[in-house]
């Protein structure tokens, strides 16, 4: 019974997503963009770097990089905390 409902859910979700991929997205190759066009035109004089992706990551959207650095720090601390061989039990 559970298997039947799981298959039904998966098939309905996949049909919806495939139809969405064909109809509900913009045609491939012509994205409607005004914010990105502003960044391509003005990144060289406002930030002074040739790499527009680097300027977007560190200058226009610096808060996202701050959040990502925090997640990386927390994950590395978590790995080092979980993988400690525990202390030996004392003999009583």
């Amino acid at each position, binding site marked *: 019974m559970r298997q039947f409902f799981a298959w039904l859910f998966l098939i309905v979700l996949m049909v919806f997503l495939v139809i969405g*991929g064909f109809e509900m997205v913009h045609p*491939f190759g*012509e994205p409607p963009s005004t914010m*990105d066009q502003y960044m391509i035109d003005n990144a060289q004089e406002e930030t002074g770097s040739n790499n527009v992706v680097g300027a977007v990551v560190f200058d226009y959207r610096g808060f996202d990089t701050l959040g990502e650095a925090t997640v990386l720090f927390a994950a590395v601390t978590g790995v080092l905390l979980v993988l400690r061989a525990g202390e030996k039990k004392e003999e009583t």
Partner: protein
Amino acid sequence: MTGTLIGNFPFVAAVVLMGIALYILIFRRNLIKIVMGITILSSSVNLFLVTLGYRTGGIAPIYTDAPEGPMVLPVVQALTLTSIVIAVATSALILSLVIRIYRHTGSLDSKKSRRMKG
């Protein structure tokens, strides 16, 4: 309709990858296979993000010795960078927990490590 049927194929490829990942997550019980399913799910979302920002005949958004042509969107590539780094960190944490579960219960079946007792 046939124009969008063939032209929108890269989006449907990302959706098919997501379908494979969801099948693994629902129907498989081995813990390592579940971790692989999570990784494939992250990869499908990253692929979808990058194909959203393509312009026909575009070049990379770098001004150093750039050839002629319109530039592809840069904001979408910045979002994908963040997503890839977070996926790597999360999968490292999940794998360390799987190692601990294997040492504690002795098997990699997800039905055997379901109870929450000590």
